[in-house]
């Protein structure tokens, strides 16, 4: 008897991966008035969940979730256009949540929405923390498979191949569990126009941090955001001999 998959996919709105972030003059943050989109790893999570349904796995529903300012709603709509059934948006304008706060929030969502599989991106490309999925797994005391490049589900048994230093390893465990996605898991689809239109009609619940009773006080105080030390190109050489002598001059050979 196959376990019904009740999937939660958290998604994050981040500065688009193609934009080169610039540090603001006050050195408190990067300039935010730039193009934003869904964190690329989260696209992989949605895609994987949708593919589970398409490959006839018993998917009951796919819930997309995001916490953040009003504009994060766009990202949940994108997830729904890709195939998520419904969304929850925790509107939080003031505090930029840390992974621990998000993990605690997700723990509540998992419990209230009776989820048995959470698929997250392995890291978001803004804070590069790579923590939320592992923290959630710890809080729930569920098994975790991070940096997944292949997922196979058979009943309530799940086999995951994950990318590790030097290659891959394969793990086997049982639902409920946490998976985080790595780049090579799949190729996310583009949302088609009809699906974008349909997504506008899918249910999207708005909630607040207070609804979940989570204290998201930040533990890390941002002291300063600085530009990395600039790296000056050393110019070009004419030929291979020029390259070799320049490398010798620089002490690299």
């Amino acid at each position: 008897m196959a376990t019904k998959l009740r999937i939660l996919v958290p998604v994050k709105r981040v500065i688009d991966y193609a934009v080169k972030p610039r540090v603001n003059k006050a050195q408190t943050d990067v300039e935010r008035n730039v193009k934003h989109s869904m964190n690329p790893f989260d696209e992989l999570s949605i895609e994987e969940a949708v593919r589970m349904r398409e490959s006839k796995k018993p998917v009951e529903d796919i819930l997309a979730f995001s916490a953040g300012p009003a504009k994060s709603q766009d990202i949940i709509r994108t997830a729904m256009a890709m195939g998520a059934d419904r969304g929850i948006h925790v509107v939080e304008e003031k505090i930029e949540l840390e992974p621990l706060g998000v993990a605690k929030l997700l723990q509540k969502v998992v419990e209230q929405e009776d989820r048995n599989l959470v698929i997250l991106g392995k890291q978001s490309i803004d804070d590069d923390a790579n923590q939320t999925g592992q923290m959630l797994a710890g809080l729930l005391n569920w098994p975790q498979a991070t940096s997944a490049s292949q997922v196979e589900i058979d009943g309530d048994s799940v086999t995951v191949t994950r990318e590790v230093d030097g290659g891959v390893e394969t793990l086997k465990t049982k639902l409920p569990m946490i998976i985080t996605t790595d780049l090579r898991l799949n190729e996310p689809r583009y949302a088609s126009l009809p699906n974008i239109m349909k997504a506008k009609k899918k249910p999207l619940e708005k909630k607040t941090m207070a609804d979940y009773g989570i204290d998201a006080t930040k533990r890390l105080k941002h002291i300063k955001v600085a530009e990395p030390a600039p790296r000056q190109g050393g110019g070009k050489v004419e030929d291979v001999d020029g390259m070799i002598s320049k490398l010798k001059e620089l002490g690299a050979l």
Partner: protein
Amino acid sequence: MAAPLRNGLLRQAATCLRQQQPTPVRQISRDALRRLASTLAVLEQREGKLNMGSLASISAAQKLGGSIHGFVAGANIKSVADEAAKIDGLEKVIYVENADYEKGLPENWAPLLVENIKKGGYSHVMAGHSAFGKNLMPRVAALLDVQQISDITEVESEDTFVRPIYAGNAILTVQSSDATKIITVRGTAFPAGAAEGGSASVEEGADPKAECPVEWVSENLAKSDRPDLATAEKVVSGGRGLKSKEEFDKIMPPLADALGAAIGASRAAVDSGFADNSLQVGQTGKNVAPQLYLCAGISGAIQHLAGMKDSKVIAAINKDADAPIFQVADVGLVGDLFEKVPELTEKLNKA
């Protein structure tokens, strides 16, 4: 406030009282903190061999001052613990002998660490920002209700750390208010430290024997006689410009051999199947900072630069004179890599 911190403050205060010297309160707390930094450095091992890359967490801990204990666990671990005891800078090595920990699964490793962190009352816990550290430490942090600090590149003080964000396009300084600091350390940002010269005591740690609901099935590691990519002195790296796996395998290994270098690749080269995933350098792959990073057929997208721009010397061969890689390269050569790289290999071999 953590118990050891409090005890230490009391001890410090008592000392001051005995000396009957009025000392400014601020001074006491700062000195007390400095004296009380006590770090547990989680060391990686594999089939009885210590991972030298994970020694960077010891170098980072040394910047804090205070005592540093190393931690190892796995099957037949005593000999690894004895080896670790020789690492310069360690005061004590704690080991847990149990084959259940051999594969580094976080489901039983996290309770194991939590138990030993509580037992030792550490103010800091550090591990490498490797696949193992990334997988395990956030789970530990959550169990301790701590916001982890990932991939640090500098230690400013016992509660303030520096780390890159936005693929290294910004450098963030953060101050932690957590009682225990859980930290992963960027290996290339700290010296590896000396594996000899120390004489730490060796002690058995606590084993909570938590159940592990995950079965480790198998692994497939790329075999290589070349230096390890993450710690190599020299790295040669190929990108999309190599056009096929055959060309990659024909052109890159001889150059690597001529230099004694490790081989890396861009995401484009990995996605196109030219090279194995584990060779990827960049925001989502490995971070390298060798003496020499020589790349061919790599344009220099920001995600790639994130993984290599701390290299001492960057050399690039690319046929597009406007490729962004030339903005960071110390030595740039505009030309066809299919001619230039073999020529370079040949001349290096002759030299």
